């Protein structure tokens, strides 16, 4: 099987306006920045970007391009806002969230990870304890008031749990260190984070890999994401950036 695609156009083919796209990465680590750049250039609009923990804060120039082009309708994240309120207040993303022009839906990080895992594993929903006793237990957390949905809860073994549904994105953009043409992937250090579970979750997973190796070159016991979860593989150069500037 050969899932390699020759360029970013082929990698992102089929992504249309209104798509829900999972974006791998945790702040600066493991963000598929070249696919994000290509997505900005493609110009598709009305997108829901399903994140895990702030990959857009770690890919500032790509986020700025999405905002300039008016491509984002909604962001799902556990940590989508700048830590510093001052910095955040000056940034167009937070300004658009404040004005209700972009919806921001927030979940506890582990719950969000589990929502992607459920989508990948064919589990429609499950009861999770994170958020019990907080606003999370009452409604979905979003800046758009009319979209706040009442939550279902159940006390299990004395613990209040919240019914959480699987989150199945149309596409996932993930970043791996090595991959082979069949879509088997290996990640480097903490750049794995949400990439594996998002690859499992999406209908179409597109992986950018820094090293494209031949089938059989990855140690079979050490593959992190088996190729069955991946549809397209694009070889990209390693880009370096200064994480301390974030």
């Amino acid at each position, binding site marked *: 099987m050969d899932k390699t695609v020759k360029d970013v156009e082929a990698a992102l083919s089929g992504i249309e306006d209104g798509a829900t796209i999972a974006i791998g990465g945790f702040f600066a*680590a493991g963000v598929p920045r070249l696919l994000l750049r290509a997505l900005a250039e493609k110009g598709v609009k009305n997108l829901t970007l399903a994140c895990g923990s702030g990959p857009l804060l770690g890919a500032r120039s790509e986020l700025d391009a999405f905002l300039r082009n008016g491509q984002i309708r909604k962001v799902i994240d556990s940590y989508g806002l700048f830590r510093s309120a001052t910095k955040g207040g000056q940034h167009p993303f937070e300004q658009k969230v404040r004005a209700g022009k972009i919806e921001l839906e927030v979940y506890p*990080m582990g719950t969000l*990870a589990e929502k992607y895992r459920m989508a990948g594993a064919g589990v429609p929903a499950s009861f999770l304890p*994170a958020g019990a006793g907080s606003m999370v237990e009452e409604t979905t957390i979003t800046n758009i*008031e009319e979209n706040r949905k009442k939550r279902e809860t159940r006390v299990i073994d004395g613990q209040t749990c919240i019914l959480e549904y699987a989150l199945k994105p149309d596409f996932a953009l993930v970043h791996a260190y090595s991959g082979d043409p069949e879509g088997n992937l290996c990640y480097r*250090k*903490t750049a794995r984070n949400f990439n594996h*579970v998002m690859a499992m979750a999406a209908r179409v997973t597109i992986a950018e890999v820094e090293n494209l190796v031949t089938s059989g070159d990855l140690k079979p016991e050490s593959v992190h994401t088996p190729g069955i979860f991946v549809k397209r593989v694009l070889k990209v150069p390693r880009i370096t950036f200064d994480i301390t500037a974030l």
Partner: protein
Amino acid sequence: MKKFEGLPREIIALRVSQEIEDNSYVNLGIGIPTLVSNWLEGRDVILQSEIGMLKTGSLAEGNDIDQDLINASCQPVREVQGTVYFDICESFAMIRGGHVDVTVMGAFQVNQSGDFASWLNPSRGLSGVGNIGGSMDLAAGAKRLFIAMEHTANDGSPKIVRDLTYPATAKKKVNQIFTDLAVIEVIPEGLLLKEIYPGLSVEDIQSVTEPRLLVARDLKEIEL
């Protein structure tokens, strides 16, 4: 409001580190909790980081910085002998599944029942959204939850309150509070003042703490 001079942030972190036993798995949040790691070097304590790392090393600088290696606060860290990496679901299985022995977090407010608020600052004016991050999962799965914070806010108002005015992160989860002025244990009867900053009196601590404090029979000065 009166504001007392107390321990610097690094020393609050030192006091927290003394409460962590050897052979523990520990998760440290952003802020003062991160500083606890400086006092754990050489100790048989393993740091778990939400991003997917066990045996998180010290903060990396200069040529040691690796863009693929950060902690959950987006700070570059070092790999050490025995470091393990894993994906986010496995990381939160450790957290939610009760495998982490001690969790240390910061907070805007804590109340006498052990409820705490850390994720949404209403004054930011963001219509009910904030950064939850891993805080609620960590609280849900915590075996022992410590809060490390300044005793009062910048304006001198108490952060240890009768009722939270900020939205809660979790309820009845906090075991101990470490501040620049005191060490307080949350017990079923309320808040037990166990240690105070040298030179301050119980009345001083009470004057910057909203709920009525219970005083430990063996109350002592904070020992480092």
